[in-house]
């Protein structure tokens, strides 16, 4: 049975959930790539300080724990934090929370830039299957998926800014 998830509807929920998490002077940081799209729209929709480009993007590339088996991901690392981290309340945003390893890597990367006052996590979907003690302060949806399936956020058309969100479920082939 095909999973039906309305990404746009969930985004609306997420927006309100994130609004509730924002402390004064907090900053939004989206996890590359799905979280970055969400952060870009949230920045605009919530009218956060710093303008449309005032949100941060962070990548887990340099701190992943599977470097030994999968090697370094190709291409440029997109981490871009246009604000100081020291003493800031950081709200991390991601599309799907699963094992928690990406969050662990991202938090390590974040701490390379400074010492935040706090870090909270908001996600569109929490699909369970945690392998580390990591939790989202807000999740627009909670569901269980078999380990053989991968859930990812897509943006139409082809990742262009301003496009509508949707979810895709793919079956994992051996990696």
């Amino acid at each position, binding site marked *: 049975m095909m999973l039906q998830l309305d990404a746009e509807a969930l985004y609306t929920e997420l927006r309100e959930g994130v609004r509730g998490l924002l402390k004064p002077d907090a900053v939004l940081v989206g996890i590359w790539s799905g979280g970055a799209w969400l952060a870009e729209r949230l920045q605009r929709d919530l009218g956060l300080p710093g303008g449309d480009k005032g949100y941060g993007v962070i990548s887990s590339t340099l701190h992943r724990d599977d470097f030994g088996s999968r090697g*370094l991901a190709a*291409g440029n690392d997109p981490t871009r934090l246009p604000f100081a981290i020291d003493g800031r309340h950081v709200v991390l945003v991601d599309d799907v929370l699963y094992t928690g390893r990406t969050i662990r890597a991202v938090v390590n990367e974040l701490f390379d*830039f400074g010492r935040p006052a706090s870090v909270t996590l908001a996600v569109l979907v929490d699909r369970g299957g945690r392998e580390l003690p990591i939790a989202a302060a807000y999740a627009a949806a909670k569901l269980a998926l078999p380990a053989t399936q991968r859930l990812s956020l897509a943006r139409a058309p082809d990742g262009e800014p301003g496009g509508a969100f949707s979810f895709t479920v793919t079956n994992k082939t051996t990696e």
Partner: protein
Amino acid sequence: MLSRRNPQLNVHGELIHLLSIEGLPKAVLTQILDTAGTFLSVNDRDVKKVPLLRGKSVFNLFFENSTRTRTTFEIAAKRLSADVINLDIAKSSTAKGESLLDTIANLSAMHADMFIVRHAESGAPYLIAQHVAPHVHVVNAGDGRHAHPTQGLLDMYTIRHFKQDFSQLTVAIVGDIVHSRVARSDIHALTTLGVPEIRAVGPKTLVPGDLSAMGVRVCHSMEEGIKGADVIIMLRLQNERMSGAMLPSAGEFYKSYGLTPQKLALAKPDAIVMHPGPINRGVEIASDVADGTHSVILPQVTFGIAVRMAVMSTIAGNQA
């Protein structure tokens, strides 16, 4: 003759050793350059370390002295959180007659994960790569006159940084090319990345005709070689050349092939001047040029650390 797989690549075409630029596909070179860009931004952060090589031991095995190259490799490895061991070969057991392969075997028994090797004999890193365990990686920091691939890569990074598009460039390499591993690596990288015009400039004793088989245009006149160049790579002139009856004196070399402001004026107005270092002022390059606005010699050094971080992290992540 059986055709051999390039020993630098595993069966999936991924880089496991960096021995030479020759034979590497363009995609591999480009990926390293892109990754170097990432590390360049890491080097601007307060915390310049990433944990990619944490717990790994990197052994600097320099059979030929070079403090500067060894230092940049050490900095690069440490920024990747590796443990670095520097081996002073002259004082070590090799001087007592231990063979190269015995040295490698002994060090491997100390759980070395990566060897950075500089050796006076062309081809030495290939011998080493053939004899290390599957999980051990080898980086060539310069072998005889054959290759200096990390220098070639950082030179390409420098060119890409200042010129962006390789496909329209004229590059002149000037000096003692026949003895230069930097020149060979640069030539292979430039041809792989699609540079249409590469000129090798110098006297016949230092720039022999059969260099053209590598895809360069041999020029014995500096004026002809520099004219309209976008990039000028000056090579270091070594003193041994005079004793080998290849050149009468440094002074005469400077007169014909030294890069002075007057000669530089023949190149394009926005030409960049590069040099692998250390520079010999007044021998291959005038001080005014080395310190002038066209010179990108210092950025080359900065890029060098990022490029070496990219190389080490790339190969460490691939299995044999």
